[in-house]
């Protein structure tokens, strides 16, 4: 028990590690602020493409979505970071992370948007079009708002996933929250900094996780 507290809840070490960890937190927040909007936008693009009139575009969108959902994000990241240099492209850690995350999160958000749009009954399109609205107007004013409301829990839950995903950027030495905490761990030979980082993740994400549960339950009943 004593050893447990020493190894995981050593407050003195946590205090020493705090400045470094907080810098990592700032980097994580910046990363999220970049990646989430990019993913939301990219996802919408993917989803709209998947409904395009041109068959090859539709096909490309669906293949793209499935491909990047099948690929583990860490693999994609390592590929972009360590693999691309062999083709002459040398991205910085943050660029590599941005590219990999954009591709990955767009495909997930895209799939969610797609399901949302599909869940809006055909009657809605009919009603909108029959009052003279163009396809794009029907989409923007009638279908998308309903689609987004239908899949709101999934959108929120996926955003939580994206925030959690930023932790893998530590593998390519991007100094975000987990990287900084792990650095502190290796220097002190003590896992308390990581517990500190975990506490920070919990503080950030627990409310969102509760919210998702509540939203899901309201949709189910």
């Amino acid at each position: 028990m004593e050893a447990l507290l020493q190894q995981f809840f050593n407050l003195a070490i946590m205090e020493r590690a705090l400045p470094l960890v907080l810098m990592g937190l700032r980097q994580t927040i910046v990363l999220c602020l970049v990646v989430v909007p990019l993913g939301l936008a990219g996802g919408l693009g993917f989803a709209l493409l998947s409904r395009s009139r041109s068959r090859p575009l539709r096909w490309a969108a669906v293949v793209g979505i499935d491909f990047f959902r099948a690929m583990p994000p860490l693999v994609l990241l390592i590929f972009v970071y360590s693999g691309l240099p062999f083709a002459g492209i040398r991205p910085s850690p943050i660029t590599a992370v941005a590219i990999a995350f954009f591709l990955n999160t767009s495909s997930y958000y895209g799939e969610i948007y797609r399901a949302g749009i599909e869940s809006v009954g055909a009657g809605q399109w009919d009603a909108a079009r029959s009052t003279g609205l163009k396809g794009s107007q029907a989409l923007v004013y009638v279908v998308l708002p309903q689609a987004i409301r239908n899949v709101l829990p999934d959108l929120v839950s996926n955003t939580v996933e994206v925030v959690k995903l930023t932790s893998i950027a530590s593998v390519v030495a991007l100094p975000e929250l987990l990287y900084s905490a792990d650095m502190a761990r290796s220097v002190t030979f003590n896992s308390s900094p990581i517990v500190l980082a975990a506490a920070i993740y919990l503080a950030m994400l627990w409310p969102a996780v509760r919210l998702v549960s509540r939203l899901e339950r309201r949709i189910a009943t």
Partner: protein
Amino acid sequence: MEAWSRFLDAFFKPELIERYFPAIMKGVVVTIEVAAAVVATGIALGLLLAVARSFRVLPASALIVVFADVFRALPPLVLVLLVYFGLPNVGINLPSFAVLWLVLSLVLAAFAEEIFWAGILSVPKGQWEAARSTGLNFVATLTYVVLPQALRLTVPPITNRTVAITKNTALGTVIGVGEILNQATTAQSFAGNATPLMMGAVAYVILFIPVVALGRFLETRFQWRRA
């Protein structure tokens, strides 16, 4: 054409494909083993916890909720590092494979519990009442009337979540589990060429695209016919 042949050389060099194929295959086996183990224990534990929650014993339910929230809010990599580096210092020595399996199972169990619980809640109260009023006790009602209906609803989200979590087996690289990514990056540093990495990526895609497609198929197949 110069650029194209350079590209092929960097990512698809035939000699390297041949040389490192066995290693990548070994990685595939490890990935499948970990994934299968995680799916089995994760879903079983998740179902167990959801059923336990249905007994509505407040302290137990509260603990389950806390468990589910914590393991859904924390990034898996954080948990992996915590367990891998922390446990040996308190005397528990687990091999990397076990650490990866343990963490991912608990994470899947947390998500699965919430999904199963939502499924159980969505079965109309009238079903409980009808079954109980014929004298079926709580467990029998759960087993024969409620769970069959609840589980059908959970197939799409469970498959989705399972796919997402098994992809996290790639995290095993960080702690030395010999799965695909690990084999690929090791080979890459030996070979000074990105071909093994490309092979690893291809292996993942070949493994997971069918699973993703299966998930999509199950989603459409299990649209429930309401009475």
